[in-house]
């Protein structure tokens, strides 16, 4: 055997020995209690492609990329925003405590590990199992407290706690992560529909218009959200608009009757968000020459959005013949 061939054999033996040593010192078995520590949502994809695809493109996934958020946070130079938009796992700081920001995987935003990585490094979920990532069932996992870490920064879970939904045990997940079929069983949907979903928004409110004598009565009810409508602050607003049509058929200009919104920080004004189950009614005198009235309820992702732009969603439109 030549000298180089001997070296090659020796190196192969050393390599095999090293691999063996690594194997015995660091178990990587599927169901091992010393399971490998997951470091990226990409690792979840192969076993949970449907869940991964739902999350991909969700507002959790784009939390650190969304141009609207980046603009409001001064491109995350307001570093504290990063704690919720690019968080380390909730388990690292514990339920009801603030998360800390991470620097890795910026395109994953609020990722699988944020919620599913347990304190001991194992994966937690609704149900336990011995296969795949060997998830451990965790009673706290689906609790409101898990969402509260970030979503109570703007008091949304406080609003929920004060509502009848909390008393009746209807939680965040019942609306925002509904149960869906998964294989032979079921699981939770991971799109996290909220204010960017028109259907979800329309389920949150009812909007009515009627006439009482010479007045138009326009009512908005938070009939479907388990928190204020709109919730969050600054960026979200809901506007009630009306206009009248004259006898000549010409439509008047749209007038804003009311705005539901919480003022931002020291901004003057009252918090007019509509609490869960509450109704707000506006009365408008009907002009003498009006033959028809129209009312619209718009949802604005930011208070500067105008009718018809991408940040505005028309939720309801009502019409009433007056003559």
């Amino acid at each position: 055997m030549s000298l180089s061939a001997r070296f090659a054999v020796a190196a192969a033996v050393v390599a095999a020995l090293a691999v063996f040593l690594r194997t015995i010192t660091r178990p990587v078995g599927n169901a091992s209690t010393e399971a490998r520590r997951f470091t990226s949502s990409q690792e979840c994809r192969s076993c949970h492609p449907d869940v991964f695809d739902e999350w991909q493109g969700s507002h959790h996934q784009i939390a650190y990329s969304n141009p609207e958020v980046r603009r409001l946070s001064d491109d995350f130079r307001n570093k504290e925003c990063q704690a919720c938009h690019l968080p380390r796992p909730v388990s690292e700081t514990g339920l009801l405590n603030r998360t800390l920001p991470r620097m890795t995987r910026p395109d994953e935003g609020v990722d699988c590990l944020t919620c599913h990585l347990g304190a001991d490094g194992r994966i937690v979920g609704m149900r336990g199992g011995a296969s795949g990532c060997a998830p451990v069932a965790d009673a706290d996992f689906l609790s409101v407290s898990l969402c509260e870490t970030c979503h109570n920064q703007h008091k949304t879970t406080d609003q929920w706690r004060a509502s009848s939904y909390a008393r009746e045990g209807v939680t965040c997940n019942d609306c925002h992560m509904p149960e869906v079929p998964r294989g032979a069983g079921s699981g939770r949907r991971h799109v996290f529909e909220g204010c960017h979903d028109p259907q979800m928004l329309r389920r949150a409110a009812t909007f009515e218009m009627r006439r009482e004598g010479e007045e138009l009565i326009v009512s908005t009810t938070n009939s479907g959200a388990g928190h204020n409508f709109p919730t969050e602050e600054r960026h979200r607003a809901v506007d009630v608009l009306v206009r009248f049509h004259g006898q000549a058929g010409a439509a008047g200009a749209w007038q804003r009757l009311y705005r539901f919104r919480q003022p931002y920080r020291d901004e003057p004004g009252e918090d007019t968000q509509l609490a869960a189950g509450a109704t707000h009614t506006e009365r408008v005198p009907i002009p003498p020459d009006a033959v028809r009235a129209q009312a619209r309820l718009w949802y604005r992702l930011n208070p500067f959005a105008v009718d018809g732009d991408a940040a505005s969603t028309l939720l309801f439109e009502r019409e009433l013949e007056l003559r």
Partner: protein
Amino acid sequence: MVLCVAALCGGCGDGPDQVAGTSAHTLPPLELAPHLDLLRAIASAQPAPPDEQARAELAELVEASFSSDASETMQQQALEWLLAHERARFALEEGLRHAEPGVRSHCAYQLGLLGDRTAIPLLLWRERQEQGIEPACWIIGALASLGNLSGLPRLATMLTDSAAQAAATPVVDRILGEARRTPPERTWEALGAELATLHEEWLARRRAAPATEEEPALRGRLAALLVGLEEFQLRPVDEARTVFTRLSVVPSDLLRLALSAEERYLRVHSIEIVRELGRAGAPLGEALLPLLRDPVARPYAVEALGEVGYAPAAPHFVELLRGEDLELRVAAASALGPLGDLSAVVPLRATLNDATTPMDVRVRAAFSLACLDASDAGEGFLRERLDRGDYHAPTIRELLDRLERDRRAARAIDAAEPLPK
């Protein structure tokens, strides 16, 4: 052969007493203690707000002094009484939230004249929140009268906006007059350039020093801001960061307490404050170094040590770059460039060229390399990511923007101060 085995086994696991990826023996010990109550005690040095009746009287005086509804004689008399009142500062600070922009402007102006530096933190916060052009100008002017020139870039920007020029001009004249500066010509550009120069000089003078006990109310107010870091809501964190990173004299004693606090958010967010201070936070580098042992705070401490330019941290960063903890590797790769230690070029280049290294680390290594190395390898790598779209584009753009900002600043320094022969 032994070496081969060692190399192949590299990263088999860290001993329980070892701080992963760092030379634990060379780091100072981490000594944390509960400091929240101590800061609360310092914060209690602030005078209590006046009672309900006194507040109402003071609000009435503010109204009569500055409201457009009051007659001139009444305004003069009311202002005299207001300024003679022992709680004048409190009344004027409350007036910064008045619904009328004119009242807010007057209150800011008077706060500047009053000369009580206790108002600085509140003025800094209001400057950030104020949307009205005129009140914002007068708040910036008041801060300047109290020795804080942090608002000058905003004022300079206003000079480029025809809608804001009229409101900004009297404040600009006042600031330049107090600084005894006369621009070569009276154009918006020349005034803006003079403000920019003044701001640069102010930034260069900023320093970290113990908060003086001769101003207990100011010290108390700053301590109260740090107490807010531990709260659940992030709003107080924003407030504290906004104020501390715009102070002329950063209270190093209070920040040292926060950095060595057992309370984790107090510790982590004060690290963020020091990071944002950049070179002005250099005296706090020593207090940051032990935090490389802190399992919660160390990635943030790494970044902050880089930004303040604490050179003794460099060897630890090079080790962390090769470690197992991805967050620490990314933090170290990010920090080596701003730290400015040229010995890091070789390990950074090795990290950048190793295709097996996670992209998070390579991208940050490229950034740091671009900070340190005149060749375009680092920046070229970042631009390639942007072209290929294979890494988070906003992060790449932010890093490229940072490089451009730093280079612009360096060019400005070179132009201003030619190197001695």
